[in-house]
């Protein structure tokens, strides 16, 4: 079990946004975290990457919690934020080196991986650029390259498709599948439901800070037989119940 979130209550202040959330991501599995704006997706992710501390409940990655050994916990995660965040004073090359240092990677090996990724995302000739000169999509690609440079066991990807060109979306999906095949786990939050339907192994549907339902597409279809075939239909019917 790569990631286990069990009975987590949490949020930014004393008022909990997440109300007793539990789900897991197994080795070599791609799980989609689905929910409306404000459903608690980003809050969940912030708890997993350790920016927030749960009021109750635990989060473990391969048996380690952040309080037991924060170093070992963080070492296993690679994170791609929703809005790209970059160090304004570092060039692209230096961002990559920063990631290599942080995860204590072998330089030569990491650069080999990096070069491949840079080529895929057409950034190879921009190694000496500053973030200020990158477009939104390019910044997003820098985030992707920095994350996939590592040999992390768990990738946390927050809404990766917005701002990426179709080619890059395709490349990213390939990359995700490649790492999945190597045994890495991926938790991905997204609003692009048809892409999620095609690529994710399982789904966790969040609504108002609670796990509404979870499972594979066929499990969801079985649970809500009248809702429809696609993830989109299922999701819409689920939120509709709540609106009435």
């Amino acid at each position, binding site marked *: 079990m790569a990631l286990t979130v069990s009975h987590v209550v949490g949020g930014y202040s004393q008022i909990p946004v997440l109300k007793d959330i539990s789900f897991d991501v197994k080795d070599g599995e791609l799980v989609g975290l689905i929910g409306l704006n404000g459903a608690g997706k980003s809050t969940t992710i912030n708890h997993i990457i350790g920016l927030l501390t749960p009021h109750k409940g635990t989060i473990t990655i391969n048996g380690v919690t952040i309080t037991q050994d924060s170093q070992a916990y963080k070492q296993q995660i690679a994170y791609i934020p929703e809005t790209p965040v970059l160090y304004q004073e570092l060039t692209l090359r230096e961002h990559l080196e920063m990631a290599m*240092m942080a995860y204590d990677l072998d330089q030569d090996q990491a650069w080999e991986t990096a070069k491949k990724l840079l080529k895929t995302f057409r950034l190879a000739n921009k190694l000496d650029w500053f973030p200020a000169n990158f477009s939104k999509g390019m910044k997003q690609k820098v985030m992707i390259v920095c994350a996939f440079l590592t040999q992390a066991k768990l990738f946390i990807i927050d809404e990766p498709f917005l701002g990426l060109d179709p080619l890059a979306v395709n490349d990213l999906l390939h990359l995700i599948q490649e790492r999945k095949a190597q045994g890495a786990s991926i938790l991905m939050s997204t609003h692009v439901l048809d892409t999620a339907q095609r690529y994710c192994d399982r789904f966790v549907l969040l609504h108002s800070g609670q796990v509404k339902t979870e499972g594979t597409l066929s499990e969801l279809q079985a649970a809500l037989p009248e809702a429809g075939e696609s993830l989109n239909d299922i999701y819409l019917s689920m939120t509709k119940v709540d609106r009435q």
Partner: protein
Amino acid sequence: MIQLFKNRRARHLREMAKYLRLVFNDFFVFALLFFLGGLGLGYSNLLKTLTSGLWWAPLVALVVLGITVQVGRFATLIEDADRVFLLPKERAMQGYLVAARRYSQWLAQATQLIVLFIMTPYLRVTLSWSLATVAGLAVTQVILKDTLLRLDLASAYQVTGQRRMNHWTNKWGLSLIVLAVGLWTNPWIAAILAVLADGAVAVWFQQHWQRQQIRWREQIALEDNRMLGIYRFFNLFTDVPMVSGTIHRRHYLDGLLRRIPVRHDQAYLYLYSRGMLRGTEFSGLVVRLTVIGMILLAFIQGTWLPVILTALFIYLIGFQLLPFFQQYDDIVFTHVYPLTWEQRLRSFVQLVTLILTTTAGLMCLVVILADRRLLPALGTVGVAAVEVWYLARVYTPQRLKRAAQNKG
């Protein structure tokens, strides 16, 4: 719309008042008085050496007045969001812009009159002008400034296929011609010329503005630029949140930066050193204070004064470096990367030690070269060494640890 401008003007003036209070602190006023007194004395001495009939005298006046008339920009107080929210109000914006021009007059015209007042004795000595003639020139100058501001107003609207009316060649051309006429013939003729130009622009604007669109992007960029200039000035005296500093690549420092090995335990030193050297905010502070300190130390004498001054400057620099530790706190990877807080602190202490040692070294060098006596030199070096060690190795980690504990 005029009400909108009034609200913005009130807010703007409140903000300016807040900063001006900080700028004109006791020290600055004192220094300014000395400076102005010195300048006044120099000017009056200069006037005594001048006689009438010098061929270059009107030329100097032309240059001074030509530059002065360009001073005082069109302050629109337009904001970035206006191009979205005020777009449907485009026609009504005319009232707003006219009000903005009226507001811009105050500072601009005051500047014109002050400069003319200062120029009066010069004009009377070198050109043997009567006060009435000088008054004519003052009228010309004011109307000319009015014309230039009107050109700015007209240029807020776009005219297809036409060069902007307030292009700098137009502004300078017009002002130099009118002022030259005033200086070499009669100021009152120049005043008539200025009135004609002003009237022409006014008539043109009245006839055209209804059919044209506002150049939103340009006006916003101009206003941002104007405000940035003001904030930069205030930033010399106090911290202005709107000025975040800029980043320069500084290729020439790469050799120095590459000496930090790409290793897990050096990650933060790698980041901090680059941030420090390439950003202008903190490096500017260190360089400014070091240079000021060195200049002061070069001029003062005494046994203990250099020691105290060196200690003071090192303390000032070391103290102000502390917030740089939190520079990257709002970047999520600072928290997500598997690096410990202790690693970060160690790197930061290393950086502070390096900076303070360099600064202290430079100041000690100045003291040694300026004084050439054993006691002040030894005293300065000794005190500086102890202070750098204490500030960087003891005080900095203590303070940052306490700050981190208080935070949570």
